[in-house]
């Protein structure tokens, strides 16, 4: 766990007893993972370099069996880097886990999870174009929702501005691209 992540855990640290953390900890042996208790699920922080190994271990573990990727997204924490968030689920054991990897702003590279679940394919493409996270080894690194040539600006980052609302009323009524009548 890096020092950056510890500052981020602002929620009161609840006990991890009675959660699946013990199992997860066992499955992630050899990986420096830390846990905190989220509102619903356990949140595990994993260093980005080891993320795919960790996800593979979580999926392969017989008791945990995280075979279902619910969601993959990112959160832009501005100066603290970008969190890549994986929401896992096990269709057999019926438990949830949130895995987070914090990328420093100057190195937005992480290995692709498409080798673990095919579900990650489009979700990673979306995250890549929205946050500028590069998923190394992604089989199809095109944009998903954005235009193909839009690869220098990342709409869901906090520093990306909203579009100006065109003023249609008031004294200076008119469209943005038109002169006022």
């Amino acid at each position, binding site marked *: 766990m890096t020092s950056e992540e510890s500052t981020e855990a602002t929620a009161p640290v609840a006990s991890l007893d009675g959660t699946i953390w013990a199992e997860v900890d066992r499955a992630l042996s050899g990986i420096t993972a830390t846990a905190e208790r989220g509102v619903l699920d356990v949140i595990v922080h994993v260093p980005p370099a080891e993320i795919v190994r960790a996800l593979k271990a979580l999926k392969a573990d017989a008791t945990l069996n995280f*075979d*279902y990727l619910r969601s993959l997204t990112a959160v832009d924490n501005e100066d603290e880097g970008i969190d890549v968030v994986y929401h896992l689920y096990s269709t057999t054991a019926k438990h949830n886990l949130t895995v987070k990897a914090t990328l420093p702003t100057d190195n937005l590279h992480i290995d692709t999870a498409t080798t673990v679940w*095919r579900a990650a*394919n489009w979700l990673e493409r979306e995250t890549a174009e929205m946050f500028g996270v590069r998923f190394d080894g992604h089989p199809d690194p095109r944009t998903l929702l954005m235009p193909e040539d839009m690869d220098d600006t990342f709409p*869901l980052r906090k520093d990306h501005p*909203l579009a100006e609302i065109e003023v249609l009323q008031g004294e200076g009524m008119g469209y943005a691209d038109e002169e006022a009548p």
Partner: protein
Amino acid sequence: MVTESAHEFETQDLLLNVGPQHPSTHGVFRMVMQVDGEVVRDIIPYIGYLHRGAEKLCETMDYRQGIGFMDRTEYLAAFNAELSYVMAVEKLAELEVPDRAQWIRMILVELNRLASHLMFMGAFGIDVGVFGTPFIYAWREREAIIDLFEEISGDRMMYAYFRPGGLAWDVPTNFVARTREVLTAVNQGIADFDGLLTKNEIFVARTQGIGYVSAADAIDFGMSGPSIRASGVPLDVRREEPYLKYDEIKWDVITEQDGDVYARYLCRLGEMRESVKIVQQCLERLQPGAIMPEKMPRMLRTPPGEVYIRTEAPRGEFGVYLVSKGGNRPYRLKVRSACLSNLQALKHMSVGQYVADAIIVLGSIDIVLSEVDR
């Protein structure tokens, strides 16, 4: 099929552009099909034509203002979308929802599931090629449901009725009687669909054995909703992580084993019957009472934290990942769209089928483009 003799008789695959304006793409979905005669060899889907940046917009709005945007994210099942959102806010803000509000929410959510599945039946019937009939049958009963929604919330599609903590205002006093009337109409609609399609030989021939996806593949692709349950995986958030009052009433998770288009149709038909049962039970359990918690702040603020709420929308798991850093608006809102994940499997399901099959495979996963693109 290209066989060993391909070199003697050389054929060239045709690229067929389907959409974004095509009668069967259910909105502005586009796919480029590489076809060999009538057989699809490859599909490249393109989405994003309806991307409005709803997630980004919600970050700039307080929790009440965001509700309207959730409606527009999933316009065919807006109550389900609102539900995920308000539940996420409630979880973070630690609000207790009164029982009556929960029952009403459940009734509305299930009715909306009926409306959405009816819409599926209609659109799917057209994809399969019945001229207009199923669509208008679907519209008939959906109209009854939507009229009821209009009487309750005031709007026909964009309800903005669920609020963090409960409901915006109470239902009309004739709510129970009206809902029963609607259920009667819906039962008739289900019977009509059953008669029109289920046993029709041509329909069965067209839908059985195509668009096959195995249980393992479906899980791997992150499919959800009827699309995965038709492959024999009983994955239903309502049963596995019950929210609202789903653990207090009797209902079944409908699964089918075949994993093909017909199974997905049957699954939805079965779910419609289950939804009718759920609503009936909810109506019996509905009691007078409060619809909002006693102490509601005038401006809702949430403590810092994050939550991933998942509910079972008609098309599958509708997840809302809400990160708050305090204050009255989300820091990050991510909508986990069931359609997006289901749509990923389209290529897997349709390659090797005929062109006409690829169309109904697309129809069978019941996409709503506004949810895919957000």
